[in-house]
């Protein structure tokens, strides 16, 4: 009799655990800059991308319940951190996606690890996310400062731009981008003539541009992003930087930036991205569907497209696990085990250090005469294969990488 009772209890307990493993609810939080200089690059568009991934996963039809919410971190690590904590502790969010601004991203990555959830970063750039700050709960999805530096930096030095002056956004992202680019420039035989660090969200760059002008460097490397980059480029053209024989290298430029600048000002810039809406049939298909639902019919940025790809793969992993195990490290391990395949990046893989790899592209902004209309902005100059685009795993210093 006692034995049967014990068996019954065991069976019940197992049953309860079994049911938990079959939990088919998922809550996804897009933690983003919803209102400031990065809001067009990520922002509400990333919430839309995550929603589209949830719809396209086909899981809803199979009885899953997927909810996507959004939050505004205002580019402040403390604000982002407290939203992340609230989402994890109170709102039962399983996954935080996108999160541009490396400062916020590094904070959220740490919190995600402590709470054992999942963080799929698309928008932040710092290569430290898969380097010394890597985590078993974080995957860095779309691009990073190393890939940008390695592609644009190399190409520019090769084309004769061997002396550089950096205009750097003064926080984690700018510092990482400057560091990685400087390393590439020096390794390719170039030199760095000087650098100046400007506060995030600076309206007037004329003073910094003038300092760059006096440095006589051939290349002015813009280690900034979003509104800061567009303002630097616009004001550089006003101050006649190009006619003085100096060239701009926009180390991070998004399609929305080019759209905002207009081709007259942006033409001829070379830069690196891992996604452009007009690359192939798949990217065009996704982008058309996206633009039908986005604000002002905007095409997806690399960051938004990456968010879609990341959420899609996450949901595939959950399906393969047969339910939501509510164990972040376990889900991420499963994601790394499975090869990725989606309309955004094609086939790819996720490395042990949390780096998602796929090809990256060197683009040039078209001349106004070459463009067929709004959003037709890029010419493909070169493709860097996935295994060469990102930092070799052994050089990152990630403690997760063994051997």
């Amino acid at each position: 009799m006692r034995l049967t009772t014990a068996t019954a209890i065991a069976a019940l307990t197992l049953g309860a655990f079994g049911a938990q493993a079959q939990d088919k609810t998922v809550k996804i939080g897009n933690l983003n800059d919803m209102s400031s200089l990065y809001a067009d690059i990520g922002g509400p568009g990333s919430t839309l991308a995550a929603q589209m991934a949830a719809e396209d996963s086909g899981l809803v039809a199979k009885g899953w319940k997927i909810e996507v919410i959004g939050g505004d971190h205002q580019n402040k690590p403390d604000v982002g951190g407290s939203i992340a904590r609230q989402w994890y502790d109170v709102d039962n969010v399983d996954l935080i996606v996108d999160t541009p601004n490396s400062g916020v991203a590094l904070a959220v990555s740490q919190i995600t690890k402590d709470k054992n959830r999942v963080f799929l970063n698309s928008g932040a750039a710092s290569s430290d996310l898969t380097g010394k700050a890597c985590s078993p709960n974080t995957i860095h999805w779309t691009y990073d400062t190393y890939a940008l530096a390695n592609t644009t930096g190399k190409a520019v030095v090769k084309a004769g731009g061997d002396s550089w002056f950096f205009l750097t956004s003064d926080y984690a992202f700018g510092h990482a981008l400057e560091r990685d680019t400087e390393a590439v420039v020096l390794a390719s035989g170039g030199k760095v003539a000087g650098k100046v660090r400007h506060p995030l969200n600076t309206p007037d760059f004329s003073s910094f541009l003038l300092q760059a002008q006096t440095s006589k460097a051939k290349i002015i490397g813009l280690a900034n992003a979003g509104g800061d980059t567009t303002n630097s480029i616009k004001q550089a053209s006003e101050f006649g930087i190009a006619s003085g024989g100096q060239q701009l290298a926009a180390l991070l430029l998004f399609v929305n930036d080019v759209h905002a600048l207009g081709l007259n000002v942006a033409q001829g810039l070379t830069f690196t991205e891992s996604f452009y809406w007009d690359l192939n049939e798949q990217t065009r298909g996704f982008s058309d569907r996206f633009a039908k639902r986005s604000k002002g019919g905007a095409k997806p940025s690399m960051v938004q497209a990456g968010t879609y790809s990341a959420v899609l793969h996450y949901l595939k992993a959950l399906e393969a696990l047969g339910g939501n195990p509510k164990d972040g490290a376990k889900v991420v391990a499963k994601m790394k085990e499975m090869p990725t395949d989606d309309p955004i990046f094609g086939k790819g893989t996720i490395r042990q250090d949390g780096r998602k790899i796929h090809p990256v592209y060197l683009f040039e902004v078209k001349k106004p005469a070459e463009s067929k209309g709004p959003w037709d902005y890029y010419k493909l100059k070169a493709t860097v294969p996935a295994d060469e685009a990102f930092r070799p795993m052994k050089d990152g210093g990630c403690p997760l990488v063994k051997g």
Partner: protein
Amino acid sequence: MFGIPTQALFSQLLLGLINGSFYAMLSLGLAVIFGMLNIVNFAHGALYMMGAFVAWFLLNWFGVNYWGALVLAPLVVGALGVVIERTMLQRLAGLDHLYGLLLTFGLALIIQGGFQNVYGSSGQPYAIPPQLTGGQNLGFMFLPNYRAWVVVFSLTVCLATWFAIEKTSLGAKLRAATENPTLVRAFGINVPLMITLTYGFGVALAGLAGVLSAPINQVRPLMGADLIIVVFSVVVIGGMGSIMVSIVTGFALGICEGLTKVFYPEASNIVIFVIMAVVLLIKPAGLFGRAA
């Protein structure tokens, strides 16, 4: 010996002057409004942004160029100011400053939010008018023609405003109406109308500054929000309510900020606040302000 540093110094002084001209025009509008209406107009930044957007609308929807916008945009923004004053601010007359501040701050959030919802945050391009492209090589720096125009034009506007308020009979009536509205009304002067027009004029100045800045910056919904806090500090440093003081402080602080960008660029966005804190500690009424 001082060759290169002097060059750098001159050019940064000049750039500071250019930025200062925006501070001057905006803080002038604030000072006029505060002086006449006793209202801390937090919507000033949003109306500055609207000035830039009206210029953009005029160009893209109606084909009106920069010069047309320079006249029309301030009128449009000023008219909106008149509506705001008549329908909302007027009801707050005689109440604590805090009410006006809250109302205008709320208005600013609504206007900015509305524009952001439609136009996003990256903004719209606005080209420099063809007559003012290019620039002059001054020896120590390359000065874009457009920036030179900004300094000259805004200085003219500032001085004209000062003259109108301090030296004309209309200005005298305005100042009298601020001191003692009941008495001035007894002379048969329509004081409420005067106050409405003053508010309209103050925000028209903001709209004008917006048009001036459109070709330099992107036309962005948040362009005013980024600037307005700095402009308020300028007003606080100078002392609220005086017109000449706000002009001078605007230019002077532009120069301070410009110099910081050379010596310690990382601090360039806080230097004005540091100055404000120091001034408030030493002279709470502002550098040139009279203690209440």
